[in-house]
């Protein structure tokens, strides 16, 4: 399940909805990861562009990997502006077993950072500035150079 929202995420509601949706699925472990906008470098917030077709196929591959381990993965992300101390990202894994869940959320979040087609901008003094130095080239980049 992949949900995109305009602006900040309603974290308590999403965590509750996901928990309740899987309440009878007999998973022993539920691990959400929540990403919140930190105050640093004088930013007022962050802003996000998402390329949805590739995000969806990337996510589908992870759903398949989760299924192979008997687990389920869910993700929510913001489009557009998210201000300081608001949250822009939740990923969560449900699994029968705690080891699977702990390892899966780590792998998922790291691959998300490296591969998900989402671009981040700092909001600063009314400008929207691409966060180039914090961004990662997708694996296989550079073939046109």
């Amino acid at each position, binding site marked *: 399940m992949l949900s995109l929202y305009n602006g900040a995420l309603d974290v308590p509601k999403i965590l509750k909805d996901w928990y309740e949706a899987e309440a009878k699925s007999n998973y022993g472990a539920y691990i959400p990861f929540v990403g919140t906008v930190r105050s640093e470098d004088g930013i007022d917030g962050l802003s996000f*562009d998402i*390329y949805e077709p*590739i995000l969806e196929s990337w996510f589908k591959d992870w759903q398949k990997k989760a299924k192979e381990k008997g687990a389920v993965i869910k993700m929510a992300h913001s489009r557009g502006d998210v201000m300081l101390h608001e949250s822009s990202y939740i990923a969560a894994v449900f699994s029968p077993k705690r080891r699977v869940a702990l390892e899966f959320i780590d792998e998922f979040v790291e691959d998300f950072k490296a591969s998900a*087609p*989402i671009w981040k901008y700092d909001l600063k003094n009314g400008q929207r500035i691409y966060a*180039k130095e914090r*961004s990662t080239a997708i*694996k296989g*980049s550079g073939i*046109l150079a």
Partner: protein
Amino acid sequence: MVKVEFLGPIQKEALELEIDNLNEVAAILQKDDAMKEWLDNCAVAVNDTLVTSLECALKDGDKISLLPPVCGG
């Protein structure tokens, strides 16, 4: 006609090109000064599937996307 689109922070209008393969796209973009800073670190998708080599035939209606470095979360 093949469409080339530039995602995220790349400030460039989409192109419509009469081409047969990705080598031609590379040749055209390498001549574009505004694209120089991007080509080194852009990934390429053909019809929304990432490709890792230029050995890819193109046909009329195909869509090529350039994906600069990402940072979700």
